[in-house]
């Protein structure tokens, strides 16, 4: 293998490129990304960048010198527009073709939008974050559509900047599908305490000039609107390539989409053998882990390893740091195993089938979390995990 192409120059793509070099690959390495900036970090966009605490110069994932040391053919500001699998060639927006022996697809996702004639912000790129930050300040009315983690973080920051914030959410309890109703209620409680107007069970139809129009016709007025209703995988350039696209690039348990073609990060919809489930994970840590795993499997086809991580996610809202380990979606039971929900210092454990599938923690030390993470990785039966790790919780 002497020509490797990585498409998507962000967390997953960079991790793949670095891992290739670390593993001794010294052939041609091309990294293509359609954003003009060198790879930068996204999680601070809705936190320290939006609040103004950090300036953009803190965002690059690597220093120019560290990037240089990778010996990349780095092509920024150019998108991939097509893939010819049989000819092993990727077509770029400037008309050029890049032949490859190995390909890593790491093109991530973009925000879903709402119809309507009014202007609405989204929050995915540095430019998005700076544009929104410019418009926030004391007394400004911000309507956020979608009370998921992204919308909730933006709400917390905007309150800190003195905005009047309205958070609109179609579900009865925000985030219930992701983390369960109990935790969803704790998080909503924090927003209400901090003066956010949280309206649940409302569906937004469109963005208008003065705000947003709800499905029932009501107009909710705003100076600025932020739409945070999930994302769409960037897979259009793979259409007609012969690769399977279904809510992302479909990959097997090795993160492979075809011989010599791997997917990594937010765009990859792969089979995680640890949970026996297909998943697409939009978490920062997964992007790095999967980029590395893809690189290794690509370089050493004879010694491929399944990519079977315990997903990890964190979110900062007000003074709370929420951390979740495991695969919480579709869980059957949630139980508090330490602390107290009302004090916002707790750990809850999730049962899926008869297994411990995840934990979510607010305000507890790392030491308390590590054994649970290990138990998730070890596929520990629920009853055993609770008996040995949380004897005081009195469950089972």
């Amino acid at each position, binding site marked *: 293998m002497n020509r490797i192409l990585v498409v998507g120059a962000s967390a997953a793509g960079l991790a793949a490129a*670095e*891992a290739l070099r*670390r593993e001794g690959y010294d052939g041609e390495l091309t990294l293509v990304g359609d954003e003009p900036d060198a790879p930068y970090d996204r*999680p601070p966009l809705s936190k320290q960048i939006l609040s103004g605490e950090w300036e953009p110069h803190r965002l690059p994932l690597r220093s120019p010198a560290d990037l240089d040391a990778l010996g990349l053919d780095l092509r920024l500001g150019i998108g991939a527009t097509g893939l010819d699998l049989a000819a092993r060639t990727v077509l770029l927006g400037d008309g050029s073709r890049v032949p490859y022996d190995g390909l890593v697809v790491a093109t991530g996702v973009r925000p879903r939008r709402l119809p309507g004639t009014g202007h609405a912000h989204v929050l995915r790129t540095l430019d998005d974050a700076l544009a929104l930050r410019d418009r926030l300040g004391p007394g400004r009315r911000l309507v956020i559509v979608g009370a998921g983690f992204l919308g909730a973080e933006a709400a917390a920051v905007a309150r800190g900047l003195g905005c009047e914030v309205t958070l609109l959410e179609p579900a009865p309890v925000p985030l219930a599908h992701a983390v369960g109703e109990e935790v969803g209620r704790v998080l909503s409680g924090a927003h209400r305490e901090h003066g956010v107007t949280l309206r649940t069970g409302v569906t937004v139809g469109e963005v208008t000039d003065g705000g947003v129009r709800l499905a029932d016709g009501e107009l909710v007025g705003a100076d600025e609107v932020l739409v945070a209703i999930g994302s769409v995988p960037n897979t259009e350039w793979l259409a007609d390539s012969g690769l399977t696209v279904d809510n992302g690039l479909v990959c097997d348990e090795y993160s492979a989409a075809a011989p010599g073609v791997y997917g990594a990060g937010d765009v990859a919809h792969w089979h995680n053998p640890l949970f026996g489930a297909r998943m697409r994970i939009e978490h*920062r*840590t997964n992007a*790095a882990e999967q980029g590395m795993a893809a690189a290794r499997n690509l370089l050493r086809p004879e010694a491929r390893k399944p990519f079977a991580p315990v997903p*990890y996610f964190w979110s900062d809202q007000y003074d709370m*740091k929420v951390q979740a380990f495991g695969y919480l979606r579709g869980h059957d039971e949630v139980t508090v195993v330490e602390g107290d929900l009302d004090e916002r210092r707790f750990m809850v454990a999730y049962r899926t089938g008869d297994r411990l599938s995840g934990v979510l923690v607010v305000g507890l030390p*790392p030491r308390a979390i590590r054994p649970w993470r290990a138990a998730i990785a070890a596929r520990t039966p629920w009853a055993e995990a609770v008996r040995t790790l949380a004897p005081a919780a009195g469950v089972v």
Partner: protein
Amino acid sequence: MHVEVDEPKCVSAGLCVMSAPDVFDQRDDDGVVILLDSDPDTALDEEVREAAGLCPAAAIRLVEK
């Protein structure tokens, strides 16, 4: 190899501790990284590179000697 950490960037993910427990630890109160050894033995190079690659905040910087 010389290791540096940027504490304000750290998001307390603890992946460094899982990859290289002899080099990194975390503070008890907020989980922020503690650098146990800024010039670890070369035998640990692999682990330390893994930790730096995995760190979701790009808070670990390595200077090869």
